[in-house]
């Protein structure tokens, strides 16, 4: 997939709460096809303390309006800067990067449901993945978790592509507890699990998948520099040796990883 380096214009910078934003970006050239789980590397300008680009997963591609959505957790100097962007500001993106979640063929009548587990900022890539699965005729189950109801977003859109189950640590929305404690895991049998979120959550999801014999893919977020597989900084220790999360990942089948699960 051809990599592109280009300036985008901020159409909207929606402050969802004081530590999450939804950046809607547009560009002159029509957006290429992008795969679910892929990411962009955003250049952070005008901040002397931030030099490297920041990898941000693709939340959604609004083809009708030629817009790319990034759901960003404001967590450090680089992302804080993204929080200050205003409508009309320019943002330089390197994209689309990385591999993608595996998209299954169209469903057959006896296909078991697919489970998409997103935690915290890890809910971001699940929207595009859910949309593409819905386009293929699936009705996936989304299991989305956060600390509290303020950190769960885009729920109406998720609901338009599948069934939505929610977990919050404080019980302010959905079931109280972690995603892996949600009752949907006891009620349904899934064919495939896709997951993105904090590593402890993904490891718990991977443990569930492994013990139930379910295929499972997780999206990692190791610290990276180039985003192109050149600098070898972001490696994950896999059964095939050190692999670049930016190029061979960010999505890995849990069977490839050396996680102690």
């Amino acid at each position, binding site marked *: 997939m051809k990599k592109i380096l280009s300036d985008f214009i901020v159409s909207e910078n929606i402050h969802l709460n004081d530590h999450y934003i939804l950046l809607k970006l547009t560009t002159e050239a029509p957006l290429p096809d992008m795969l679910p789980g892929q990411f962009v590397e955003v250049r952070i300008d005008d901040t002397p303390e931030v030099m490297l680009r920041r990898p941000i997963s693709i939340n959604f591609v609004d083809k009708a309006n030629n817009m790319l959505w990034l759901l960003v957790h404001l967590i450090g100097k680089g992302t804080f800067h993204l929080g200050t962007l205003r409508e009309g500001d320019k943002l330089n993106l390197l994209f689309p990067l990385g591999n993608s979640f595996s998209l299954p063929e169209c469903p057959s009548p006896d296909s078991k449901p697919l489970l998409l587990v997103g935690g915290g900022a890890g809910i971001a890539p699940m929207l595009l993945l859910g949309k593409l699965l819905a386009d293929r005729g699936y009705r996936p189950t989304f299991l989305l978790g956060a600390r509290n109801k303020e950190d769960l977003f885009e729920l109406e859109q998720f609901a338009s592509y599948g069934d939505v189950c929610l977990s919050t640590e404080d019980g302010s929305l959905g079931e109280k507890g972690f995603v892996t404690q949600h009752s949907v895991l006891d009620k349904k049998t899934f064919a495939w699990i896709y997951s993105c979120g904090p590593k402890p959550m993904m490891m718990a999801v991977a443990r569930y998948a492994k013990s139930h014999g379910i295929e499972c893919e997780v999206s990692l977020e190791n610290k990276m520099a180039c985003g192109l597989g050149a600098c*070898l900084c972001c490696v994950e220790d896999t059964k095939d040796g050190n692999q670049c999360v930016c190029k061979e990942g960010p999505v890995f089948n849990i069977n490839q990883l050396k996680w102690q699960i």
Partner: protein
Amino acid sequence: MQRRSSIQYKSTEMADLSIKLGQLDMINPVMTASGTFGYGEEFADLVDLSRIGCIIVKGTTLNHREGNSYPRMAETSQGMLNAVGLQNKGVDYFIEHIYPRLKNIPATFCVNVAGSSIDDYSLTAQMIDDLENIPAIELNISCPNVKQGGMSFGVKPDCAAEVVAAVRKVYHKTLIVKLSPNVTDIAEIARAVEAEGADAVSLINTLMGMAVDAETRRPLLSTVTGGLSGPAVKPVALRMVWQVAKAVKVPVVGIGGIMNATDAVEFMLAGASAVEIGTANFVDPSVTMKVVDGIDEYLNRHGYKSAREIIGALEV
């Protein structure tokens, strides 16, 4: 060298950007630093590889190396630390699987050669000597991220001389030697490798550094220490290029925090015949093209006809 008026001699014609390092002919002085540009292919969508003076590919060792554990990188003020540890699949793999692809790309490639013994270096160099489309190697005697060897060869003049002498015996093309800044007197090392037949020296490799997370009380790199690169090291690099350029007759390649054409010109004025772009490739993957164009623009604006005219043209 007399400075010329920028107005009187302003020209829109391309200046002559070509540079020669030993027997290596480059169309311009812009090279890519080893480990920051992969094998060039990774950047092929974003850069016209044929417009780069020379692409120095990832450090290659005799045997496969897995490198250090994650985390290998930490961003610091105006720079970054890395501790990749020369991850590569070894010279046999390079020759069998990577070189056949590179030789079909219209670009100039040089291989960075690293090792942990003199035999490692000379065997690897000898194997690369046979590759028709690789006109040069850069001998890495300065990697700070490998426990055995690497930098240990580059911090003492006699060790540096010994490894260069051994490689010179078996390697017949252009031999560039990459020097470590983690020494008391870099000019002394440069003179030692020049005496053993180095065709050029490149400097600086990364400066040893360290970063700490106060909240977790842990180092940010798995190896605790790593190599610092980026704009933070540029003044140190510029000073060392200046010192080495005065100490040796062979061409000097300037490396260290070059982010744009102005930085590159500064290194050339300080005595560098060419420059390597490293960390900047991570910030702007197309930066090499901008540096080539920017050097040309600088030369035209100042009335120079050739890039060679500004080498060491610093007025002090």
